[in-house]
């Protein structure tokens, strides 16, 4: 059985009546590294956010491990979200808070409300935070304020936060768009490592086709909210590229 099934997913934003997604369907097997490509506004972000219902789909189904995410009660949805890690383009850290506090945010779905309110996370979670931070090489920055870190370091904190959830599925929304090329590769390698070593299924949207080719095991291209390509990275030739990005596009390499 496929890990994640997207079935005829459609999203229409009420304000402005924008159709962000139209009838998108595909399946993702466990352990895949699926890359979403497409121009800005093609619906990549909306698609990722429909999976954990940060955005409510207008119609269609999202089936994770056999359960329909779109039908879950608020309580069950929160339990399901624990298993879905997410990494963001703008890192989405609380800038004034410490790195540790930001990483512990990943445990919110596991701790009781009062523990979170008092800031008294269990000992195991603190230990888990140490492990996550040392895995992304930021253990010594544990008590630093998040905004004292460089962009690449902040994204690594974002990855550590996702690691805290011990996710089975990782959604990465343009994880390297705000970073320079060298840092991009280091971040992508952390995602690759999670995919390979922990068996996490990854769903990442990327701007650069070269990054998608290098890290993806499969590529889905969106254009105007519809799937225009679904296949292995090698299958995107020049003609296909022009179809996805438009006639005037030139491919840029990120090394």
């Amino acid at each position, binding site marked *: 059985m496929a890990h994640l099934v997207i079935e005829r997913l459609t999203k229409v934003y009420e304000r402005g009546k924008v159709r962000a997604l139209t009838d998108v369907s595909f399946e993702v097997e466990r352990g895949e590294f699926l890359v979403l490509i497409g121009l800005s506004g093609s619906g990549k972000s909306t698609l990722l956010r429909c999976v*954990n219902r940060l955005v409510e789909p207008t119609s269609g189904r999202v089936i994770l491990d056999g359960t329909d995410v779109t039908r879950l009660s608020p309580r069950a949805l929160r339990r399901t979200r624990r298993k879905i890690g997410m990494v963001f383009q703008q890192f989405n850290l609380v800038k*004034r808070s410490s790195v540790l506090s930001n990483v512990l945010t990943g445990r919110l779905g596991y701790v009781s409300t009062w523990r979170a309110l008092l800031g008294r996370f269990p000992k195991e979670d603190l230990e888990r935070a140490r492990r996550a931070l040392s895995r992304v090489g930021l253990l010594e920055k544990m008590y630093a304020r998040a905004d004292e870190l460089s962009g690449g370091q902040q994204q690594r904190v974002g990855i550590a936060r996702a690691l805290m959830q011990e996710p089975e599925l990782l959604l990465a929304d343009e994880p390297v768009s705000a970073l320079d090329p060298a840092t991009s590769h280091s971040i992508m390698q952390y995602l690759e490592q999670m995919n390979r070593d922990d068996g996490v299924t990854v769903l990442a949207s990327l701007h650069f086709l070269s990054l998608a080719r290098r890290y993806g095991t499969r590529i889905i291209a969106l254009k105007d909210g519809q799937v225009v390509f679904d296949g292995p990275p090698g299958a995107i030739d020049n003609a296909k590229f022009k179809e996805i990005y438009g006639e005037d596009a030139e491919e840029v390499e990120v090394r």
Partner: protein
Amino acid sequence: MRERLLLSRRRFLSFFLDWISWVYLLYAGFSVHYIRTSPTLIWRPEEKFVLPELGLTDWILVLLVTVELTLLVRSFGVSLGQRAFGVILARADGSPRVGFFPRFGHFLASQLVLLTVGLPVLVRPDRPWHERAAGVALLPRPRGAPRVRPWWTSAYALTGAALAGVTVALGWVVTDIQVGALIRDVDKPARLWRGLSRPDLSYFFVPHPLEVDSIFGALVKSLFMALLATLAGAAIAFPFSFLGARNITATGPVGRVGYALTRGFFNVFRSIESIFWASIFAIWVGFGAFAGTIALFLHTIAALGKLYSEQVEHIDPGPVEAATAAGGNRLQVIKQAVIPQVLPPFLAFTLYRWDINLRMATVVGFVGGGGIGLLLKNFKDGGEWTQVGAVIVTFAVTVWLLDFVSGWVRERIV
């Protein structure tokens, strides 16, 4: 179709604005004249302020005159309404150069509209008969059209200037401004000046024989009134400020109602000044510092609540998204992603509020709230100007100090 509708709306609104301006100009101008020439109103502040009353025939006359003036300006120049709603009188073919005769024709044909109570406009709002008859049309003003002549020779600017002028003149006579008295009677409060310039600090620590508190004692009272009101107010405002933030609550119908209620409460209580509450609680719990504290407290809840809520609405939504994606519930998300972002500004607002509350404590003391305000009132009523001077100096120094310190702290934490 939509454009036609928009044009008709502009036509109506611009006419209405022009007409209302003329009615206001006439009525306000007449009122200035009326107040200035009626002897009972000057030098007798206890006299009830009355605006001139007009009979039915007067009103009909006013109506006719104002409508005719409006039509005149709208035909021969660019009126205020035409300028404000972006329309001009053009030739039927769209050319903006309209000669005298078509304009005059428009003015005459408009009389027909007046006589038939607007029939031509009602039948074809976008292209009325009288305009077609005169060979003109009211069209949207082309954007960025070059100015034909300086703005101060145009009708709309002159009308605007007249509106401003007559408003200032009306304000002048209504507030009974007398520059003469200000200059002529400068030595009337001579005893007061003398007392204020020689503040008597002998009752700074020892109470004045007729008073309960020394100046220092009253000051300490006021400081604590302000402090307790601020702390208690902040404690209540804090949880409610999340209810009053659109980005936190307005996600479902229940939340939206909670948001509207909270914001409504903040707005209503903010508009009721502490001085009013102090008068009530002075009767309820007796004159003194307690009444003043409750008065300040009530106003603080609303004032801080509004500031807090707005701060919550301006947070970076990213961390909220991240905490939600990790499976946090509403309270957890607020604690982990919202509060860290708003705490420093909340503290700054609260300190600033203490500042304001100390100053308000004086005013509140005047109407029964106790503290240094009460002392000031009693000394003033007793004509003890050297004591008044002492209180004012003490208070000014304290406020300045607190302002300085809180400003310094605010700078550190934000």
